[in-house]
């Protein structure tokens, strides 16, 4: 097991290097001037040039790349050009809102998606199956921003049950923080719930048609025991993979939701950094998101390997 983990960790290195180089080149090939955004519309050309020099933006590409990579290897992702603070601190300050949102959204996805998928599989071909899968397709197809804005209109503006937008840190109390997170978590969780429901249904159908399930039924076990004890346990392994991927995707992919609900998280940080051409911040954020993605995948693999010994051999 230990060598399995070490192998996987070592294989992260080329992945991260490729991500770092790719992001660097992509950003450098994209036109756009961070200095113009920082100094405002009336700044003189002379002043812009001076700031570009200060920030090292006039150095040759290769010099900038080697400097950045050298620092990154030592754990220094540089300073954000616009926010004037270290990239790692920018990311750290936004980790809490994004983590809370991701966990809640995953919870929403699991608590809606799993039971719906199981129920649909059990009732294959019946109206419950078709109805729930129809709703699931609706859930996947619904744009996040549309759902988010409508939830705000109903629950925040009209009913005034929940705040329109913003974020309260956990240190201000769990309920205070949750109040802000309920609508975004539903917005973000619904699409994933729909995806999860469809995946669960098809996994369950695969398993339910397996021979050991037929044997279980032939033994005269009750249907509930067959579904939840024999079938679901085996369907869970691929589902854990899916849930892990959903969690990782939500961590970096909550851009639209964070924007609509004005949550100071990593997604919003990234989109703003791109708009401002804040190159070190974009690089650092993408690198950290990539690292989290790889690590979550690793954890999912470890977890799967614990559940299924066959996987440890490969």
């Amino acid at each position, binding site marked *: 097991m230990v060598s399995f983990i070490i192998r996987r960790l070592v294989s992260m290195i080329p992945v991260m290097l490729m991500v770092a180089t790719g992001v660097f080149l992509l950003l450098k090939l994209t036109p756009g001037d961070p200095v113009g955004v920082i100094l405002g519309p009336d700044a003189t050309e002379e*002043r812009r040039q001076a700031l570009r020099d200060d920030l090292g933006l006039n150095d040759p590409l290769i010099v900038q790349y080697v400097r950045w990579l050298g620092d990154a290897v030592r754990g220094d992702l540089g300073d954000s050009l616009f926010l004037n603070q270290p990239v790692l601190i920018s990311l750290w300050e936004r980790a809490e809102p994004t983590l809370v949102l991701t966990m809640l959204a995953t919870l929403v996805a699991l608590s809606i998606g799993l039971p719906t998928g199981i129920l649909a599989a059990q009732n294959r071909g019946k109206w419950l199956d078709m109805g729930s899968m129809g709703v699931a397709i609706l859930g996947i197809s619904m744009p996040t921003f549309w759902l988010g804005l409508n939830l705000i209109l109903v629950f925040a503006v009209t009913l005034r049950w929940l705040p329109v937008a913003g974020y309260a840190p956990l240190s201000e109390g769990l309920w205070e923080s949750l109040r802000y997170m309920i609508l975004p978590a539903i917005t973000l969780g619904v699409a994933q719930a729909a995806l999860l429901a469809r995946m669960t249904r098809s996994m369950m159908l695969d398993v339910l048609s397996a021979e050991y399930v037929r044997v279980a039924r032939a033994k005269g076990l009750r249907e509930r025991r067959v579904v939840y004890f024999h079938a679901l346990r085996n369907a869970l392994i691929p589902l854990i993979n899916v849930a892990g991927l959903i969690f990782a995707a939500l961590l970096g992919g909550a851009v639209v939701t964070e924007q609509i609900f004005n949550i*100071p998280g990593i997604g919003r940080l990234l989109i703003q950094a791109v708009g401002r051409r804040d190159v070190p911040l974009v690089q650092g954020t993408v690198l950290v998101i990539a690292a989290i993605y790889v690590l979550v995948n690793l954890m999912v693999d470890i977890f799967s390997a614990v559940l299924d010994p066959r996987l440890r051999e490969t």
Partner: protein
Amino acid sequence: MSYYLERALSSKADRRQFALGAAGAAGALTLGASNAGAQDEISEGGELQIAIIGEPPAVADAVFTTATITNNIAQQMFEGLFAYDESFNPQPMLIEDYDSSDDGLEFSFRLRSGVTFHNGDPMTSADVVASLNRWGEINGRGRLIYDRMNSIEATDETTVRMVFDQPSGVLPSFLARSEAMITPASVAEAAGAEQIPTDQLIGTGPFRFEEHAIDQYLRLVRFDDYVSRDEEPNGLAGRRTPYLDSIDFVPVPDESVRANGLITGEYHFADVLSADLAEMLELDPGVESINVQPYYWYSPHFNKAAGLFTNQALRHAVQLCFSQSESMLAGFGREEFVRFDASICGEETAWYSTAGSDAYDNPDLDQARALLEEGGYDGETVRWIATREYPYNFLMADYTRQQMEAIGMNVELVVSDWATLVQNRADPDAYEIFLTGHSQYSHPATQPFNDPTWPGFWESEAKTDLVNAMIAETDPDALTTIIDDYTTLVWEEMPFVKCGDNFVLRGRRTEVAGYVNVPDFFFWNVGLNG
């Protein structure tokens, strides 16, 4: 149908309110600065929440950046030697009074005594000299003044003397801008060309810096030892009383969130809302919409350094081929938020002039075609760089493109994000036209396009002479004549096409008392009632 639209159509009472709101919008919302809040009883205390358009660059260092949002925040904390009154005339702020020689070569400023910085230190002439030195070094307008200056010195604790090589009558007007802010000498000297660190944001203003959580809030609190002037408040000038305990500037990039938060009371004030939201705000009894006049004017700028539009005849051809008022409506939609006006300064200012602008909004396609021929236009592609990030920018460009094509021009809209546009417009080989906005309430000499290195690259001896004359002049009547000449020159040389004025929509909760409608918002003399 949206909830608000439904409500708008659901009852007679609402319809009446809607009609009144729409009809009264332009008039009621532009109450003069002096009478908007004067009658309100203001109670002390309260925590004001303000939704702003995004994180301000350089936090509150208005010397470092020219971004409007930073300047607006800075002026709650920092003060200058002068401040603008409601007619945009400079009035004393940190000075008791000043002398200037008739030739505009010497100025002597006597500082107010008893003014202290937020750190408790008294403000002295050494602080003023150090602050202005930083402004003269890194700020464009400061540099313009310093290039003409011979010396600046603190002659005693409370007197600053400035001597110029060339007459500089415009000085008080420049010193009234929020960027000419006074900080302790130690802060100005330590910062130099860098931005001031947040723990060093120390000024003399009615509010002081408390805390900055990036992307969450920037909190200012009342400066209890603030020493106010005694004169009646007038625009940004006169008495300043900080009633509020604190002000939170909350970055809310999405304008519908700013509007919704205003309606639910999460924010007391929301900056920059699109005109489409005016009806929604007017329907809510708890919200007052604010139509900010003057604000910005908009124009396509020609690239005069390279390519087609180095030719003046072709610039005139473009101006004559489209209706400037139609382009404003295409960009901004609602009539109560636009004004069709040829002047490059709002009519509310002393610099208003429409001299030489007969051609404004008077399209003549035949003459335009004749000018194309005269200019030797031969079907070359006109690259108009635009962005959808600001909808007006694309909409005005797209409308004008169609009119240009109608007279036989070949126009390509090159659409990108704002950061790309800002980079491209600085490159004379990258474009023929770009569009942007400029303040209606700035002295014409302070407009960035006077600088020949600024995008569009307006190089003109006549312009340089007139700008110099504007900066030098000390006599207001003579200045009016110069501004007339300058405006005439703008319409003659046509470096850009002034299309019209746009007013921005802001919103406030009705419990915000004492608010005065000025372009650069401020929150002293403002309280939270009820």
